[in-house]
């Protein structure tokens, strides 16, 4: 009992500090009297019938207790039960159990158990028996990681979606608030139709509410100016919220925070308990930034809840939507306004400029910095091309292999990729070559004949390209390129007659002859790329050379043989670097 008394005493002290109520010793005496057993019945009776209840109020939990007590008060006021002496007898009968339960609770909280290894062995054995013991498998971690990633993604998406929706709602609500005409002082009920100005926070998607800081409420003036004559401690403790709508009827909107009728406030006709006023009027000092959170309808639940409770209720979350700056003053009329312009409204005469206002929450969005992607790929392909030399409808074979480097541009040219490639291109030709026959006449009247015949089969070119890719969609790209090509090697079959030795010499698969081919060319590429997977892409390229690939001196022809080819290939990404 002394503990209870001490607790209640502390609560009263704290409450007095908060409410700026001068503690009077008579308060304790009256409270003490109530706690006597002899007067317990009377107390219960009084409690049952009285409108006012003065519970123990813990400062730290003061608000909670007060509101909870207020709930009980409301409940009790609505539901009256006649006291029967059997109530007390039943209580006495169960007192021992209650005390024992309390004792066990205290014992459990105070008892600490030291861990011993054999505990694990026993537990392990038990788990094994139950089949709950699993050997660790690395795949579990991978799966768990997937789940975590998925969960994280869900949380992330949900969180920021809710933030965005909340911001939108606040902005809409603020605009709505601004759009309605405010005639009342507090700026809250500003519509001409006296509709309640509501700071509506709704939305079932809202699931996170935070109360970061304590909402500091001061309402000295409001209390003092209140015409309420209830300065008793009951009155101080009274914190019933009275909400009025157009008709002035009180209601609780579980999902709406509705503020008091301004007229009542300004006219001072508010009959509420000063504490109610204090609670209702969110008045803060200039140094106080109250973080007012959004309310989850679902979390509000019961319509009997005080909407202001809704404001202050905390739902587990880690995000803060924003900061609602409350510029507090010591003025009588505390208003909550979402727009400073409202204060300037001519209809709001009595609104003090320095009155409390709530600004729109700030949402800071970090700008995503564009990151450059560098990628290196192996490309290869095969195709067909035109036949050099004598005209033929039959195409000839082409092959290519090489490395391709691309970098993704940023900012304005997001769909463009720049890069280059180094390629080895193979060209196969059929029936392409030249032949020379020379007769040298001597002064004796004789003649010596020389000849050579070359059939060029395979040519290998080194190619360096500058590439530009245009991304049509995530999987489709158009490719444009221009580059230089140099003849590296040529394979041919050759036969010749040397005049000194008048016999035919044949050399097949010879890599020593490049005569008949021009070494340099400029090559244009137009292609299409389809991304099959993250690392594999399909390419279709058309190539066109600018210059004649053949040497007219050897071929003895003025015909221009440019390179034309179509190739189908694959591109495999080796690695990507993101910076």
């Amino acid at each position, binding site marked *: 009992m002394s503990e209870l008394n001490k607790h209640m005493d502390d609560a009263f002290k704290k409450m007095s500090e908060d409410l700026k109520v001068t503690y009077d010793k008579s308060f304790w005496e009256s409270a003490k009297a109530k706690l006597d057993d002899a007067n317990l019945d009377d107390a219960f009776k009084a409690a049952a019938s009285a409108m006012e209840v003065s519970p123990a109020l813990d400062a730290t939990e003061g608000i909670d207790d007060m509101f909870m007590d207020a709930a009980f008060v409301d409940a009790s006021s609505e539901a009256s039960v006649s006291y029967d002496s059997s109530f007390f007898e039943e209580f006495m009968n169960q007192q021992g159990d209650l005390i024992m339960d309390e004792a066990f609770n205290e014992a459990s909280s105070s008892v600490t158990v030291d861990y011993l290894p054999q505990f694990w062995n026993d537990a392990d054995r038990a788990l094994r028996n139950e089949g709950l013991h699993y050997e660790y498998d690395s795949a579990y971690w991978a799966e768990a990681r997937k789940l975590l990633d998925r969960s994280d993604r869900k949380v992330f998406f949900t969180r920021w979606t809710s933030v965005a929706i909340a911001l939108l709602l606040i902005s809409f609500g603020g605009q709505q608030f601004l759009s309605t005409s405010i005639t009342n002082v507090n700026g809250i009920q500003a519509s001409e139709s006296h509709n309640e100005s509501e700071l509506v926070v709704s939305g079932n998607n809202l699931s996170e509410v935070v109360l970061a800081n304590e909402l500091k409420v001061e309402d000295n003036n409001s209390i003092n100016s209140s015409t309420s004559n209830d300065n008793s401690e009951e009155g101080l403790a009274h914190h019933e919220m009275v909400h009025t709508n157009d008709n002035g009827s009180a209601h609780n909107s579980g999902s709406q925070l509705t503020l008091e009728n301004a007229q009542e406030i300004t006219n001072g006709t508010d009959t509420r308990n000063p504490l109610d006023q204090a609670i209702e009027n969110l008045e803060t000092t200039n140094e106080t930034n109250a973080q007012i959170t959004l309310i989850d309808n679902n979390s509000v639940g019961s319509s009997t809840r005080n909407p202001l409770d809704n404001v202050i209720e905390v739902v587990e979350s880690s995000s803060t939507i924003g900061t609602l700056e409350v510029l507090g003053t010591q003025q009588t009329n505390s208003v909550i306004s979402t727009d400073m312009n409202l204060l300037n409204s001519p209809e709001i005469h009595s609104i003090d400029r320095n009155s409390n206002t709530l600004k729109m929450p700030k949402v800071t969005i970090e700008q995503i910095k564009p990151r450059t992607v560098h990628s290196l790929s192996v490309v290869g392909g095969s195709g067909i091309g035109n036949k050099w030399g004598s005209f033929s409808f039959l195409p000839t074979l082409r092959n290519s292999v090489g490395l391709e480097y691309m970098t993704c541009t940023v900012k304005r040219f997001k769909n463009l990729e720049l890069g280059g490639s180094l390629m080895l291109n193979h060209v196969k030709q059929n029936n392409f070559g030249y032949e020379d026959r*020379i*007769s040298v*006449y*001597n*002064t004796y*009247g*004789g003649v010596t004949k020389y000849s050579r015949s070359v059939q060029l089969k395979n040519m290998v070119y080194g190619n360096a390209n500058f590439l530009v890719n245009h991304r049509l969609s995530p999987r489709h790209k158009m490719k444009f390129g221009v580059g230089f090509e140099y003849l590296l090697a040529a394979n041919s079959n050759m036969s010749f007659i040397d005049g000194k030795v008048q016999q035919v010499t044949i*050399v097949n*698969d010879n890599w020593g*002859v490049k005569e008949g081919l021009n070494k340099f060319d400029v090559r244009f590429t137009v292609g299409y790329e389809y991304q099959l997977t993250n690392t594999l892409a399909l390419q279709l390229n058309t190539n066109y050379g600018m210059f004649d690939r053949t040497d007219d001196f050897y071929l003895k022809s003025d015909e221009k043989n440019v390179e034309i080819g179509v190739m189908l290939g694959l591109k495999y990404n080796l690695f990507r670097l993101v910076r």
Partner: protein
Amino acid sequence: MRKWSLILALVAVVTSCKKEPLPDLPEANTPYYSVSGYVDGEFVDMNVGQEGIHISQGVSEMNGIPTFYGQIISPNENLRLRIEFTRPEIVVSSAGVSAFDLSNLGYLVHQPGCKTFSFGSNILQGNFVQVAVESGIFNQQNEISFDEYGKHEVSFKFTDIGQNSFTIPIKYGFENTMLNTGFTTSPNQDTTVFSANDIELNHEWYIDGTWVSSEAEFGMPLSIGIHKVEHKVKDTHENEASHTTLIRITDFVLDWQLGLNPCSGTSNSGSKYGKVIVTLWKDGVEYSSVHLNDNLSNNFSVSNIEYFGVQSMPSRAAFEFSFGTTLMNEDSGDSLSLSGMSGNFNIGLQ
């Protein structure tokens, strides 16, 4: 290690590939020798080295006179063209070798001619002379007729001595004028003195085929009878000429030296050294320029002469030519006109 092995393998593959370079071809040229023109209005173009056409060259003789020739043969066309030059009297001079007598170049067209012979102061000897030309029949005559130019072998019999014949070459149309091979003989008691007309030359005397002296003048006793005397001369450039005649020794004293002179009423036809003879064989029929007097007025030009071989005595001479001529078959009398003929030709000098 693996990386180096891969690199070495790649290098080995690259280096092991066959790399035979493209053989260089010499610069082509046009045929060195060719003849083109119109043969009886039909264009002929023969390029030595093409289509089996070939050329040959060398030295030959025409009626005992050395000639330089070259001929192009086209088997496909069954055509053979021979261009022949009589050797000039002087081939080598201080200016070098000259296979052509460009001052006397023209066609050689045979003209008949005759020579008479004399026996010095012995007037009666002519009554006992029988002459046979080219192993012909001996006739008693005091003059010799020739149908063609050349050096002919003429046989003499002196019936007052015996029946032996004495054959000496007699030049017709090729008398030496630049190399004087003439000489005189005079008795000196029982010796006969031989004196060359040109003492500046190198001399060689052969009596009855036996060398007897190299002096410009010498004397020696000779036996009674007819003796053949041959006088060879050479100039400083080794140009050679000879003259052969007969002398008679009677009672160990020189009786006479056979002399030859153009027949009366005939003129000297001029030297035929360095004349050109064009002969064409077409389809096996020979056509020659030597039988038509019209060719006496036709021109044959030679230019850009190039000699091959030893400089002192080259073996071949190449030249550009152009001519127009009419050839005739001696047997049938058919002729063949060659016009606008030109080209590059080659004759042998040895």
